[in-house]
Every structure is written in C-alpha cells, then in structure tokens.
C-alpha cells in the first residue's frame, strides 16, 4: 500500500506505526506522530492500524526561536 510519509509517497507493507518507524530506521528516537492530522500517543503506536493513503507526520525536536 501507499502511505504519505512526511509529505512523500512511500510504498510499504507496514500496517503499524512501530513497524513503519523500524523500516525508516527511526525506532527509539525522540519523535511524535500524527496520522491524518490526529496525534497518536507513543503508547498506541503498536495498536493503530495504518491504511492505504494515510498521511503520516513524523516529527522531532528542532532549533527554534
């Protein structure tokens, strides 16, 4: 299926956030996730099922003013 990950199309077999993060080599990092604009708490990364066309935002801390 195709997910839109941080604005880019990505072909993937991952149906769980945790699996997608491992695929992207993001596992264990300081991250926050939104699926279709809804924030998914870390505790639910194993539960939420990803569907074809879902928009995933993977966010991390950055320099800011």
């Amino acid at each position, binding site marked *: 299926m195709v997910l839109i990950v941080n604005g880019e199309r990505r072909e993937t077999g991952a149906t769980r956030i945790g699996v997608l993060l491992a695929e992207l*080599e993001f596992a264990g*990092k*300081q991250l926050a996730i939104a699926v279709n*604009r809804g924030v998914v708490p870390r505790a639910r990364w194993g539960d939420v099922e990803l569907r074809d066309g879902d928009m995933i*935002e993977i966010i991390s*801390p*950055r*320099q800011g*003013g």
Partner: protein
Amino acid sequence: MLKLYDQTFNSHLLIGTALYPSPRIMQDAIRASGADIVTVSLRRETAGGKTGDAFWSLIRELGVTVLPNTAGCRTARDATTTAELARELFATPRIKLEVIADDETLQPDLIGLVEAATALIKDGFEVLPYTTEDLGTAMRLVEAGCRVVMPWASPIGSARGITNRAALKLLRQRLPDITLIVDAGLGAPSHAAEALELGYDGVLLNTAIAKAADPVAMAGAFKLAVDAGRAAYEAGLMGPRDFASPSSPVVGTPFWHAVS
C-alpha cells in the same frame, strides 16, 4: 521571578536555539544568558532519524526548561495540531503559540491566534501567545484564559527594538496581573533593558544573540541588561519632567547675593 502559569523561574530572559554558528556556541550562549527557558520548534524528521536526536541531546545536557513553538503555522488548525504534537514530544502543556498571517513580515494572524488559543486553553494547554502590541487582541487572549501574553517589539529578526513604546506601556497598565514578555524584534541589550524598565516580566530573544559576532559574549551582555532593567523597574524609576530641575542645592550657592 518570572511566573508562567503556576511555575516560577529566576531568569527574566528566555532564549531561542536557532541560527547559531555551531551547536557548541548555541550551548555556551544559552549558559551565558542565564536563561531557564529555551524555545524549540518541531519539524519533520529526516532520513535516518538523527537530526532531531542530535539536537535534543544538546538541549538535555543544558538542563533547561523547554518551550516548544508553533513557528511556521499559518492556520489555527495547523497550530493546534502542532501544539498537540509538542505536548506528546516534550511532555509539557506549555506552548509558544504562533499563527502567522504574512510571510514577509511574520505578522501574527490575530484572529487565528485567538481562535487557536481558545481551543488550546480548553484542552489544558498553558498558552504563551506571540502577538502584536494591540491591546484589544491581548484582552481577548486573556479572556480566553491566557495568563501570559507575548507582544512583539518589532518584526521577528528585525533588530529594530521597541517601535511602539506607548502601546507596550498601555498593555502593562491595562493587564497588571498578566505575565507580559516582549517577544521578537529586540536587537540590542538596551532594547531588552527598556522592556524590563517598562515593567515587562521578561524578554524572548534569539536572532540578536545568535547573529552577533560573538554570540556567547552577547548573551552575557543581554543578561546584564535584563538584570539591570528589572532592578531599575523594581527600584521605581522617576517620571520624565518638562523642565530642568537642579540637582545641586540652590541655597548657599557662592556669590548668589554678590552685589556687582
């Protein structure tokens, strides 16, 4: 003491983490500023997931309180979602709320700001809204439940200092119980001292320090100015007068009654 909702901090200076020449200079400048609170942003993680983690470990080493922002958001909806991500990422209810109307001037969208602040306060956030010097908007933000309001001095990164002193003074007079922080536009330590002398509770700085020839030394200079401004405010500044008033005593002036 600087009060942000139910928490108090020693320093009246809040500092940004962007635009420094190197990560090491960023850390040294933050230490030299004496700030207890640093602002950070949220961005999409890049391939490998190293960018955010590398920055985050630098911040953690400093042992400071993090204030995430919604920089770059152009709608109330984007800002509220970003705030929710920030709460998840940093485990803090505190958010520096920015809703930008115009990319050229980074002028805040005051209508979107009030809308987003209202929604976030209802959701349990401690909102620190970045706004203009407009009193009406500040009052709407306070009505929405904001206990902190952060008017600009002039546009972000412009280094022009306080361009509407009368309006900032009015905000202080009309909102005596609200924590007021000048956010954006300060370019020199004297600008920061002026804000504190006006009775502002704090200043939020980034570009003026990060873009100085020596950011660490400039952070120290801003610390001195903020401390001086606050001490002056607490000492009670005299008001301006229209005419001269001699400081040396008039009585006993030599030759005063001399006959020519």
